[in-house]
């Protein structure tokens, strides 16, 4: 069980996070929906260790996480930009986390190749990152995180910079990977449809406050008007 309790964060007198609390079951994806500037990214950066909270609790299987260094948390943060290592090719980007962990060469090669096949990157392994399309870059970034089997993945609008077709392709891939491996993730998005599609659980963030719903049905009921409006829009075509 992952538990976040009463996290607060102020920047120069501005309250960015107000008593943020939520729970996340292992092997589930919590979609966090919210407008730009509502504090979603700040929350993820705090959980990943890039920012310090003013106060609050973050427990992973009853162990305090805030006292653990970011590199030892087993929490990978993925931003909207793929941020690949431009001096390494696709294979080395995917293998990065394993090399850090000094995994034996043959095993490393097998793991990278298996993952590359899952992510449909098997033909791209020797390419430089500049030679990849936006979707392929995002897949490499996703794979680089997946390969180390993180305890939690923090996905900060990971498909936000992709075109509509690639975005759908990546959503399908994410769902496929989610089903094949036991992934625990916090998926941040401002897109209602994407939030519903990706998550097993739902939460909404507004002006620094977070509201977690017990189930997708609960969320649907309280956001009926919004969901109806979205459905009506698509019916028009």
């Amino acid at each position, binding site marked *: 069980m992952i538990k976040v309790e009463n996290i607060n964060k102020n920047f120069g007198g501005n309250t960015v996070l107000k008593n943020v609390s939520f729970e996340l079951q292992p092997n589930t994806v919590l979609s966090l929906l919210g407008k730009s500037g509502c504090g979603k990214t700040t929350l993820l950066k705090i959980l990943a260790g890039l920012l310090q909270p003013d106060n609050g609790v973050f427990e992973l299987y009853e162990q305090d996480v805030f006292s653990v260094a970011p590199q030892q948390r087993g929490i990978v943060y993925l931003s909207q*930009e793929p941020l690949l290592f431009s001096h390494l090719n696709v294979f080395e980007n995917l293998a990065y986390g394993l090399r850090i962990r000094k995994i034996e060469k043959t095993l490393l090669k097998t793991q990278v190749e298996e993952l590359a096949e899952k992510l449909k990157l098997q033909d791209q392994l020797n390419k430089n990152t500049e030679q990849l399309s936006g979707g392929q870059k995002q897949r490499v970034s996703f794979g680089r*995180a997946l390969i180390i089997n993180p305890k939690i993945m923090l996905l900060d609008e990971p498909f936000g910079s992709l075109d509509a077709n690639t975005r759908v392709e990546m959503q399908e891939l994410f769902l496929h990977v989610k089903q094949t491996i036991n992934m625990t993730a916090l998926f941040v998005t401002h897109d209602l449809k994407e939030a519903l599609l990706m998550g097993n659980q739902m939460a909404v963030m507004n002006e620094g406050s977070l509201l977690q719903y017990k189930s997708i049905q609960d969320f649907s009921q309280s956001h009926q008007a919004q969901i109806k409006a979205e459905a009506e829009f698509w019916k028009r075509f």
Partner: protein
Amino acid sequence: MIKKSLYLVLVTVLVLPVVVMLYLSVVNQWSFPKIFDVSISWRLWADFFSGNTSMLKSVLLSLFLSTIIASTATFFGFFVSQQLSDRPLFIKLSYFPYLIAPVVFGAMLQFYFTLLGLTGSVWGVLLAQVLFVFPYSVLLFSTFWNESVRQTAFQSTTLGATTWEVFSTVLFPMAQPWLYLCFLQCFLISWYEYGITQLIGIGKVETLPIKTMLFIKEANPHLAALSACIMVFPIVSFLIINRQLFAKKEVIA
């Protein structure tokens, strides 16, 4: 055609002074207007390489100073600029040594260096030049430390890399062109530096530019030309290395 002609003019303008210097360094008793009516001798070059003159000592001293100064400025500039990247005031302050002439900067330092007993010593010149070159390194690296680099470094941390691993496996390789350029520029600034060396070295520290100016003051065009030819050597070397590096990268790409 025009492009080719302009290219030719540019090459001539750049190469001609070096050719003239080379010519002056191998002629005897050259005097205007007898430009070509001279005898050729490699005596000055032979003396230089045999170490019979003090010029070789000056070259080695300049090499030593420039290498240490460029290495120090590049190494510390990389880390200091990282710390100052979100403090724009300090970055702006780094422009200060370049808003005033090096001689004025040297004169400002001279008082403190005299108090500390550093004038007239190699270490004094070394420290003064580091103070002059270091802000340049900070300025150059401040263009490297952008948000994307910071985020990439953090990405590496969340993937499990320690601070040292973040630097050795991500930041240093990513910064390689900056590190190379910074070292090269700092080396050249120090290699050609005259004003500060003259003021802090008070004539006792004879680097190559100081020596060249001495030959010019002595009205010895042949030794001054030889000295100038040697001064150009690092630029030629860097150009050749650069060309080979780019050629290699093109082959890899």
